[in-house]
């Protein structure tokens, strides 16, 4: 079975703390994604990685950074957490599309981490 796991289901942090969210996939996928999900706003892409050490900004990268040192692991880092980063964070992975970059392949999502910043 395809599996994407996230390090925590629930996390509570204080303003100003450095926060690490970890995601691991066991499907040998090239692509990995971090989204945040807020009521009424849907899923918004924070960062995307298409290979080890390669990343691309999504729509809302401000206040976040990412790290991909190994193919199966993609980390989201909040350098200095703020209350407006309280949200549900979803990681996903997927195979790379055909040459030229367009994707035929679905994304597989992890269970999410609900982060609360006090």
């Amino acid at each position, binding site marked *: 079975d395809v599996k994407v796991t996230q390090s925590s289901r629930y996390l509570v942090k204080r303003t100003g703390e450095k926060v690490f969210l970890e995601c691991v996939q066991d499907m040998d996928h090239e692509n990995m994604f971090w989204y945040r999900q807020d009521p009424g706003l849907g*899923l918004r892409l924070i960062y995307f990685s298409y290979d080890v050490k390669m990343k691309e900004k999504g729509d809302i990268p401000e206040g976040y950074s990412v790290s991909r040192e190994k193919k199966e692991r993609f980390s989201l880092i909040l350098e200095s957490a703020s209350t407006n980063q309280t949200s549900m964070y979803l990681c996903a992975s997927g195979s790379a*599309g055909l040459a030229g970059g*367009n994707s035929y392949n*679905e*994304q597989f*999502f992890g269970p999410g981490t609900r982060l609360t910043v006090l």
Partner: protein
Amino acid sequence: QQPVQSPQAVILREGEDAVINCSSSKALYSVHWYRQKHGEAPVFLMILLKGGEQKGHEKISASFNEKKQQSSLYLTASQLSYSGTYFCGTEAESYNTDKLIFGTGTRLQVFP
């Protein structure tokens, strides 16, 4: 810019039909549909590609109008298990990557 989904919410009785629409301001290469049940991760339903190819669910159908940059998801003879929030994810022709931009979601509730 996020695609716009309509309606925002739908309430159905079992056996009724529903249509969920997704509209983008960009020229699209593909549209993906996902369903998220309460407290769970989103799960893939379908991909519709420019040119008409589709891949996805047996009991749910969808269309993709490339000229209008719109897609519609058709849920016929709805079942209780169809309840959840439906998201479309769009891949713009200009991206040349595998990233998707998701809509704000349509919440579907099916009652007995």
